[in-house]
Protein backbone atom coordinates (compact mmCIF):
# COMPACT_ATOMS: atom_id res chain seq x y z
CA UNK A 1 0.00 0.00 0.00
CA UNK A 2 1.50 3.30 -1.07
CA UNK A 3 1.67 5.86 1.71
CA UNK A 4 -0.75 8.68 1.06
CA UNK A 5 0.20 11.92 2.76
CA UNK A 6 -2.78 13.11 4.72
CA UNK A 7 -2.39 15.76 7.32
CA UNK A 8 0.53 17.08 9.24
CA UNK A 9 3.01 14.78 10.89
CA UNK A 10 3.12 16.78 14.09
CA UNK A 11 0.88 19.14 15.94
CA UNK A 12 2.11 22.66 16.58
CA UNK A 13 3.11 21.77 20.10
CA UNK A 14 5.03 18.67 19.01
CA UNK A 15 6.74 20.76 16.35
CA UNK A 16 7.81 23.24 18.99
CA UNK A 17 9.20 20.46 21.18
CA UNK A 18 11.45 19.23 18.39
CA UNK A 19 12.53 22.72 17.35
CA UNK A 20 13.35 23.56 20.96
CA UNK A 21 15.46 20.42 21.33
CA UNK A 22 17.37 21.27 18.16
CA UNK A 23 17.98 24.79 19.44
CA UNK A 24 19.15 23.52 22.82
CA UNK A 25 21.60 21.14 21.17
CA UNK A 26 23.07 24.02 19.23
CA UNK A 27 23.26 26.33 22.22
CA UNK A 28 24.59 23.90 24.78
CA UNK A 29 26.88 21.72 22.74
CA UNK A 30 27.31 23.62 19.49
CA UNK A 31 25.87 20.57 17.77
CA UNK A 32 23.85 21.15 14.58
CA UNK A 33 21.14 18.50 14.43
CA UNK A 34 18.84 17.92 11.48
CA UNK A 35 15.76 15.75 11.80
CA UNK A 36 14.03 14.03 8.90
CA UNK A 37 10.74 12.25 9.48
CA UNK A 38 9.36 10.38 6.50
CA UNK A 39 9.75 7.26 4.46
CA UNK A 40 13.25 5.98 3.76
CA UNK A 41 12.77 4.07 0.55
CA UNK A 42 15.20 1.44 -0.57
CA UNK A 43 18.07 0.91 1.80
CA UNK A 44 17.38 3.16 4.80
CA UNK A 45 21.03 3.55 5.74
CA UNK A 46 22.07 4.54 2.22
CA UNK A 47 19.25 7.03 1.92
CA UNK A 48 20.06 8.51 5.31
CA UNK A 49 23.64 8.99 4.11
CA UNK A 50 22.36 10.82 1.03
CA UNK A 51 20.12 13.03 3.18
CA UNK A 52 23.09 13.78 5.39
CA UNK A 53 25.14 14.64 2.33
CA UNK A 54 22.35 16.98 1.22
CA UNK A 55 23.09 19.17 4.22
CA UNK A 56 25.93 20.50 2.09
CA UNK A 57 28.95 22.18 3.55
CA UNK A 58 27.59 21.87 7.06
CA UNK A 59 27.25 18.09 6.75
CA UNK A 60 30.68 17.29 8.13
CA UNK A 61 29.86 18.95 11.43
CA UNK A 62 26.21 17.91 11.53
CA UNK A 63 24.16 15.06 12.85
CA UNK A 64 21.20 13.78 10.90
CA UNK A 65 18.42 11.90 12.62
CA UNK A 66 16.24 10.09 10.07
CA UNK A 67 13.07 8.44 11.27
CA UNK A 68 10.80 6.24 9.18
CA UNK A 69 7.74 5.72 11.37
CA UNK A 70 6.06 3.44 8.81
CA UNK A 71 8.95 1.02 8.43
CA UNK A 72 9.98 1.57 12.05
CA UNK A 73 13.55 2.44 11.19
CA UNK A 74 15.82 4.96 12.80
CA UNK A 75 19.12 6.12 11.35
CA UNK A 76 21.54 8.51 13.00
CA UNK A 77 24.30 9.78 10.72
CA UNK A 78 27.18 11.75 12.14
CA UNK A 79 29.54 13.73 9.95
CA UNK A 80 33.25 13.04 9.82
CA UNK A 81 34.09 16.08 11.91
CA UNK A 82 31.47 15.61 14.56
CA UNK A 83 32.24 11.95 14.96
CA UNK A 84 35.24 12.80 17.08
CA UNK A 85 33.14 14.15 19.89
CA UNK A 86 30.07 12.05 19.27
CA UNK A 87 31.15 8.46 18.87
CA UNK A 88 28.96 5.65 17.58
CA UNK A 89 28.36 4.30 21.06
CA UNK A 90 26.81 7.61 22.12
CA UNK A 91 24.72 7.66 18.97
CA UNK A 92 23.58 4.14 19.80
CA UNK A 93 22.51 5.21 23.26
CA UNK A 94 20.51 8.09 21.82
CA UNK A 95 18.96 5.69 19.32
CA UNK A 96 17.88 3.44 22.16
CA UNK A 97 16.30 6.35 24.02
CA UNK A 98 14.40 7.27 20.88
CA UNK A 99 13.18 3.82 19.94
CA UNK A 100 11.87 3.08 23.41
CA UNK A 101 9.71 6.20 23.18
CA UNK A 102 8.66 5.36 19.63
CA UNK A 103 7.45 1.97 20.78
CA UNK A 104 5.04 3.74 23.08
CA UNK A 105 3.78 5.86 20.19
CA UNK A 106 5.53 9.03 21.30
CA UNK A 107 7.24 10.18 18.13
CA UNK A 108 7.98 13.81 18.92
CA UNK A 109 8.92 13.13 22.53
CA UNK A 110 11.34 10.40 21.46
CA UNK A 111 12.95 12.64 18.87
CA UNK A 112 13.30 15.50 21.35
CA UNK A 113 14.81 13.38 24.11
CA UNK A 114 17.11 11.67 21.60
CA UNK A 115 18.43 15.02 20.40
CA UNK A 116 19.05 16.09 23.98
CA UNK A 117 20.88 12.83 24.60
CA UNK A 118 23.07 13.45 21.55
CA UNK A 119 23.76 16.99 22.75
CA UNK A 120 24.70 15.78 26.18
CA UNK A 121 27.21 13.29 24.81
CA UNK A 122 28.66 15.81 22.39
CA UNK A 123 29.12 18.35 25.13
CA UNK A 124 32.74 19.30 25.56
CA UNK A 125 33.44 21.32 28.66
CA UNK A 126 35.34 24.48 27.97
CA UNK A 127 38.89 24.08 29.13
CA UNK A 128 40.20 27.17 30.82
CA UNK A 129 43.92 26.59 30.50
CA UNK A 130 44.59 25.58 26.92
CA UNK A 131 43.37 28.74 25.27
CA UNK A 132 41.20 26.85 22.82
CA UNK A 133 37.47 26.71 22.99
Amino acid at each position, binding site marked *: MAPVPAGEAF*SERQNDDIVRAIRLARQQSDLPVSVYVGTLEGDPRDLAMV*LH*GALGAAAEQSVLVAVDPGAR*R*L*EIVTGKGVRRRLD*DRSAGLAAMAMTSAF*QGGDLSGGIASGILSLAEHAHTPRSLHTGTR
Partner: protein
Amino acid sequence: MSARTLSALQEYDDGEVPAEGISDLAALLVYVGIPALLFLVIAVLVLAPSMARGPRYRPGLGWWAAPVWFNGPDDADSAVRHATATAEGGGASARW
Protein backbone atom coordinates in the same frame (compact mmCIF):
# COMPACT_ATOMS: atom_id res chain seq x y z
CA MET B 1 -64.04 -6.82 44.56
CA SER B 2 -67.12 -4.87 45.51
CA ALA B 3 -68.22 -1.66 43.87
CA ARG B 4 -67.57 0.23 47.06
CA THR B 5 -63.86 -0.55 47.35
CA LEU B 6 -63.30 0.13 43.64
CA SER B 7 -64.70 3.62 43.92
CA ALA B 8 -62.61 4.19 47.05
CA LEU B 9 -59.46 3.39 45.06
CA GLN B 10 -60.22 6.09 42.52
CA GLU B 11 -60.47 8.76 45.11
CA TYR B 12 -57.52 10.96 45.80
CA ASP B 13 -55.66 11.26 49.03
CA ASP B 14 -55.91 14.34 51.13
CA GLY B 15 -53.87 17.14 49.61
CA GLU B 16 -53.31 15.35 46.33
CA VAL B 17 -54.07 17.59 43.39
CA PRO B 18 -54.38 15.88 40.01
CA ALA B 19 -52.58 17.61 37.17
CA GLU B 20 -53.09 17.37 33.47
CA GLY B 21 -51.00 14.70 31.76
CA ILE B 22 -48.09 15.90 29.65
CA SER B 23 -48.44 15.76 25.91
CA ASP B 24 -46.71 13.17 23.77
CA LEU B 25 -44.26 15.71 22.49
CA ALA B 26 -43.30 16.80 25.99
CA ALA B 27 -42.92 13.17 27.09
CA LEU B 28 -40.67 12.47 24.13
CA LEU B 29 -38.59 15.51 24.94
CA VAL B 30 -38.13 14.58 28.58
CA TYR B 31 -37.59 10.84 28.26
CA VAL B 32 -35.74 10.70 24.93
CA GLY B 33 -34.47 14.20 24.16
CA ILE B 34 -32.74 14.94 27.45
CA PRO B 35 -30.99 11.53 27.75
CA ALA B 36 -29.85 11.79 24.13
CA LEU B 37 -28.50 15.27 24.79
CA LEU B 38 -26.69 14.04 27.87
CA PHE B 39 -25.24 11.15 25.88
CA LEU B 40 -23.97 13.55 23.23
CA VAL B 41 -22.41 15.89 25.77
CA ILE B 42 -20.53 13.04 27.46
CA ALA B 43 -19.40 11.62 24.10
CA VAL B 44 -18.05 15.02 23.07
CA LEU B 45 -16.25 15.44 26.39
CA VAL B 46 -14.60 12.06 25.94
CA LEU B 47 -13.63 12.43 22.28
CA ALA B 48 -12.69 16.11 22.15
CA PRO B 49 -9.16 15.89 23.64
CA SER B 50 -7.97 13.21 21.23
CA MET B 51 -9.63 14.95 18.28
CA ALA B 52 -7.89 18.18 19.22
CA ARG B 53 -4.55 16.37 19.33
CA GLY B 54 -5.05 15.00 15.85
CA PRO B 55 -4.13 11.55 14.60
CA ARG B 56 -1.71 9.79 16.86
CA TYR B 57 1.22 7.69 15.76
CA ARG B 58 0.73 4.01 16.47
CA PRO B 59 3.58 1.64 15.70
CA GLY B 60 2.56 -0.97 13.17
CA LEU B 61 -0.32 1.00 11.69
CA GLY B 62 1.76 2.71 9.03
CA TRP B 63 2.53 6.36 8.49
CA TRP B 64 0.24 8.85 6.85
CA ALA B 65 1.95 12.23 6.80
CA ALA B 66 4.13 13.99 4.27
CA PRO B 67 7.85 14.00 5.07
CA VAL B 68 9.12 16.77 7.33
CA TRP B 69 12.69 17.93 7.65
CA PHE B 70 13.66 20.04 10.60
CA ASN B 71 16.76 22.15 10.15
CA GLY B 72 17.22 20.71 6.68
CA PRO B 73 18.41 22.34 3.45
CA ASP B 74 16.32 25.19 2.12
CA ASP B 75 15.45 23.48 -1.13
CA ALA B 76 15.30 19.87 0.00
CA ASP B 77 14.39 18.33 -3.36
CA SER B 78 17.28 19.72 -5.37
CA ALA B 79 19.66 19.36 -2.43
CA VAL B 80 18.93 15.64 -2.25
CA ARG B 81 19.18 15.25 -6.01
CA HIS B 82 22.63 16.85 -6.14
CA ALA B 83 23.87 15.39 -2.88
CA THR B 84 26.77 13.02 -2.57
CA ALA B 85 26.23 10.47 0.14
CA THR B 86 28.30 10.89 3.26
CA ALA B 87 31.08 8.37 3.09
CA GLU B 88 33.06 8.55 6.30
CA GLY B 89 30.16 9.18 8.60
CA GLY B 90 29.37 7.32 11.76
CA GLY B 91 26.22 6.93 13.71
CA ALA B 92 23.76 4.24 14.62
CA SER B 93 20.82 2.31 13.23
CA ALA B 94 17.90 1.00 15.17
CA ARG B 95 14.53 -0.65 14.71
CA TRP B 96 11.55 -0.72 16.96
